């Protein structure tokens, strides 16, 4: 799952009870923290004493539904902090990260940021993973005047709150499928698919994406033959995938939030001998070896996914980050998750804002980020609009070809390889 994503959390009654209980703890904890906050300033941030380390707080999903992404984000933040400390820290202060786990729970994440700000008195805050958690987190940080720099809360829901203090360094989620849809629409009429299916999880990450692509494709004459939403709590995707197969759609745009969803659809399609000409999933195929091992290497062929970054990106900063990651955590470059780059980008943008404002004053940082300045990150340029969305982010589409994960769209980009179209049959 890319860090744009989130999965709706509660997936079983036990999970619910677990979270309801944690929600109760969160409520009690929040009450205590509000009392604690009564005696603290809400100015936000503040400068550390000379030579004292600056503390950056973040809540991450180190367990629970988003734990794989949360842990990848943790590595991204840690990698950035190590890099920044090796280059003098922030304004001469060594960086210390104060990362707490929210167990993928929206109630816990609010409690965590309340505690980080009012009890731990952190100098800066970085965002959690997913829109689902960014929304409650940003309400808390906004209340205390903190800038919420995040890399995984890019769904429209996060910006619909009208907060002035939230900044997503990654690409806006709703636009993710535009390069794919425009590419299909640009194909000669004789090659262009005639029908499309749009199954999607009911998730704030996936749902905004499909209508945008559907509109472009329908305008190009691609008829919709299946368009249904399924709940994120689904554990058996077989009937839904079989219904898509029965529609005989020539292309499938799947609103998925994770590897299991994509894997279930691919396996069901293979079992039904259904081979669409193109198959793109909003998240899952970008998970490298995790995706390949789940679906089987031969079933990755031709599968596409939108994203704003991949380990082979030619951006020098990105290459250096990937090399650092491999040196610190092992593995290969292709195994570096996009979550790592998104987290690293958060740190980079924060560092530039602190350097530019010569301090940790949150109001000045927020004003600076809204000033129209263009910043840099391993994901590319960052320029925030009035809502805090990164309008400079470029979205690509990637495709698995012969076991490699290649950038294929936009076609005009010099780094893009040729799209495999139509894709080969499953297992080919």
């Amino acid at each position: 799952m890319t860090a744009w994503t989130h999965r709706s959390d509660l997936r079983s009654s036990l999970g619910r009870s677990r979270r309801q209980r944690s929600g109760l703890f969160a409520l009690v904890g929040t009450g205590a923290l509000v009392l604690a906050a009564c005696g603290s300033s809400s100015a936000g941030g503040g400068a550390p004493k000379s030579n004292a380390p600056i503390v950056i707080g973040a809540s991450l999903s180190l367990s629970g539904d988003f734990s794989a992404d949360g842990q990848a984000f943790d590595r991204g933040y840690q990698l950035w902090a190590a890099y920044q400390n090796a280059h003098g820290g922030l304004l001469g202060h060594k960086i210390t990260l104060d990362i707490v786990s929210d167990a993928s729970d929206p109630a816990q994440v609010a409690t965590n940021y309340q505690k980080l700000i009012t009890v731990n008195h952190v100098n800066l805050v970085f965002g959690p993973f997913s829109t689902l958690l960014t929304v409650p987190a940003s309400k808390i940080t906004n209340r205390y005047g903190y800038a919420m720099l995040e890399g995984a809360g890019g769904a429209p829901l996060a910006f619909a709150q009208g907060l002035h203090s939230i900044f997503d360094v990654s690409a806006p989620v709703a636009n993710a499928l535009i390069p794919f849809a425009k590419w299909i629409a640009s194909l000669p009429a004789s090659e262009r698919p005639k029908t499309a299916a749009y199954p999607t999880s009911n998730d704030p990450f996936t749902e905004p994406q499909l209508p945008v692509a559907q509109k472009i494709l329908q305008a190009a004459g691609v008829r919709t033959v299946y368009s249904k939403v399924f709940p994120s709590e689904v554990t058996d995707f077989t009937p839904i995938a079989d219904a898509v197969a029965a529609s005989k759609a020539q292309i499938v745009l799947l609103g998925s939030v994770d590897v299991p969803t994509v894997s279930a659809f691919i396996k069901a399609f293979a079992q039904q001998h259904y081979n669409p000409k193109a198959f793109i999933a909003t998240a899952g195929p970008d998970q490298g070896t995790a995706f390949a091992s789940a679906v089987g290497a031969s079933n990755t062929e031709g599968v596409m996914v939108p994203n704003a970054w991949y380990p082979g990106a030619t951006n020098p900063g990105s290459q250096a980050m990937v090399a650092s990651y491999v040196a610190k955590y092992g593995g290969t470059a292709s195994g570096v998750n996009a979550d790592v780059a998104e987290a690293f980008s958060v740190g980079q943008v924060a560092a530039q804002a602190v350097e530019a404002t010569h301090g940790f004053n949150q109001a000045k940082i927020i004003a600076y980020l809204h000033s129209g300045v263009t910043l840099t990150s391993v994901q590319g340029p960052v320029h925030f609009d009035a809502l805090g969305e990164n309008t400079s982010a470029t979205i690509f589409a990637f495709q698995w070809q012969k076991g490699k994960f290649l950038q294929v769209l936009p076609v005009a980009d010099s780094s893009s390889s040729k799209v495999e179209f139509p894709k080969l049959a499953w297992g080919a």
Partner: protein
Amino acid sequence: MIQAVVDGVLTGGVYALMAAGLTLIFGVMDIINVAQGIFVVLGAYLSYVLSVHLGIDLFVGLLITMPAMFVVGVVVQWVFISRLGERERTAMSILATYAIAIMIEGILGLVFSDNYVELNAWYVTRSYHVFGFYLPYIYVFGFVLAAVLLGAIYLMLYKTRFGASVRASLQDRSAARLVGVNVDRVATITFGIGVAVTAAGGMVYGATNSFNPNTGYDLISRLLTIVILGGLGSIGGALGAAVCMLVLEDVVAVVWSPVWAPFVFFAALVVVLSVRPTGLFGRSSARAQ
């Protein structure tokens, strides 16, 4: 529609395999084993290890994983469950098995990380073509496996001396003790058998779904629904309820909307229990079989 019914029947077999241990354990021991979901996941991981690292076929691997899980079940019963007091045994079992689930989940997380994995074999993505419908090998094999294992448990319960002891314990633990049944031993072996069967369910689940150490939470509410609907303690009821529920859910997903399918799954439980509080094969009738 017909494909959805076929899907529901075949998937129901998989769920029956996963639920059989749960209903057996409750029937004999009055233990509500909320660790059943994590036992499914543990079984899937054992199959994963044998398949990926030793190249052993998933079904052949059951010859190793089922005995291994039997041992796990016996140890869990001896270390944790047998120490629960008789008076609040059922209520306390929820807490004890939840703690067990958390421990196993933590260990799996340390060993395998939280990344999703899946079991793969040549038959996972292939299917039979029968009367215009595709029947996936893995679901057909899983259904047959469920029928064989559930049939074996049924025969064990009703055709063996040990089965008579189990049923005596199931009907009245005190009375069973009075007639010479070693109830504690029966409970320990039954718990082991329940967990061993779950290894098979975990293998088929892992071959049809991605899983990670947290996946147990996705399963337990559905498994509890199935065993309650089928009648706590009834093996046949678990199979019947699993098939009914999965068919219902799949048909709703295709004919109406996938969004309503989970709702109907749980709504059916409420409706059935309001009409027949003991479930389709209620506890009293199950124990009288």
